[in-house]
């Protein structure tokens, strides 16, 4: 199974009926494909919609209905449109149950860096700082390493997105939680050993006696 699919399917297990959820671009977007059968979840798009659907069929795109990346989407029955102040009121005001975002680095206390690489890439933070500051729960979906280097580090070398720690990181190798300000291995990827995770991780990991393998 592709690493992105493993990550998205594992994170989908964190969904619960009636949740309001915001998915970032990249791997997080894939989580919407694995909502458990029969479960209703509200997906928010920060450009002003709850009830974002799949991309439209060819020839059915409408210029006033796009996702946060500007690509055409559809709206599900029961969808709701609003302005950007309301959209970020939902995010910052504690009304958003879960956000799933991509990451460049997460440190062993759960601090996230995901908005710029100085001198290389300065896309801007968009809604990321508000999402990490305001969502009830933050899960980071990312590959475990980049060019062989661990993305779960002792201390972020890149500029932080927020000082509020994330709750969980899911990679193709591991599920890591950050309760009590320490990184704890909560699960391993399919066919991945605890030793492999520890070897691929720069951060100090607390490893409980029994670490279950992801069931996906």
């Amino acid at each position, binding site marked *: 199974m592709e690493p992105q699919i493993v990550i998205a399917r594992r994170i989908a297990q964190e969904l619960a009926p009636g949740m309001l959820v915001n998915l970032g671009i990249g791997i997080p977007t894939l989580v919407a494909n694995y909502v458990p059968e029969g479960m209703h979840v509200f997906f928010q798009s920060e450009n002003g919609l709850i009830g974002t659907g799949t991309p439209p069929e060819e020839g059915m795109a409408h210029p*006033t209905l796009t996702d*946060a990346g500007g690509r055409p989407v559809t709206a599900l029955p029961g969808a709701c449109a*609003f*302005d*950007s102040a309301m959209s970020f009121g939902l995010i910052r005001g504690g009304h958003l149950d879960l956000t799933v975002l991509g990451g460049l680095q997460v440190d062993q206390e759960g601090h996230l860096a995901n908005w710029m690489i100085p001198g290389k890439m300065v896309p801007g933070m968009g809604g990321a700082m508000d999402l990490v*500051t305001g969502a009830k729960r933050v899960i980071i979906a990312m590959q475990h390493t980049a060019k062989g280097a661990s993305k779960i580090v002792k201390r972020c070398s890149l500029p932080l997105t927020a000082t509020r720690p994330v709750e969980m990181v899911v990679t193709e190798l591991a599920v890591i939680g950050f309760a009590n300000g320490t990184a704890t291995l909560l699960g391993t990827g399919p066919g991945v050993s605890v030793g492999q995770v520890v070897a691929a991780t720069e951060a100090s990991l607390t490893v409980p006696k029994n670490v279950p393998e992801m069931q996906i």
Partner: protein
Amino acid sequence: MQTISLERAVAMIPDGASLMIGGFMATGTPERIVDEIVRQNKRNLTVIANDTASPGRGIGKLIAAKLVHKAIVSHIGLNPETQRQMTAGELKVELVPQGTLVERIRAGGYGLGGVLTQTGIGTTVEKGKQQIKIDGKTYLLEVALRADFALVHAFLVDYLGNLSYALTARNFNPIIAMAAATVIVDADNIVPIGVISPDHIVTPAPLVDYLVMNA
């Protein structure tokens, strides 16, 4: 509200003006007005908007024509030309978290001096800003934003200037319509008074100064 030709509407904007422009990745941007600004070659503009869109779309056209001196935006990641001009020192870019940006504009339009937010605490965003503690939580003071002109896109406008919006083309439009000295509207549909139900009007007519006529 006055109705006005596209050419005359844009002719009111002087070089060096500050413009709030509606739109999110060009969805909900008044493209006709943007095209006319490029045609009339208005220079040295300050643009306050969510993003700089992508090359060839919305605000991306102003960037490509090098008409923008300063951009106050939350995201430039999908417009490589903005990043190139910023790196080359040709364009000043102030990056503001999206929720903070829209609240600063809202404050400007609602008669408030600024807002308090936890977004940006402990990041590069807090630099040079006052911090205020309330009930044990630390907030950043983010000051209000206003502009000379708001360039608004609406779905429906009636002959009085009442506006309603469509789906994700609403975004910053009703917020900027409160926060500028002069509000210019381009709408997809101009309809008789009464067509838009009072409950569905989002921006009340007295906020609109000029409506761009159909071509």
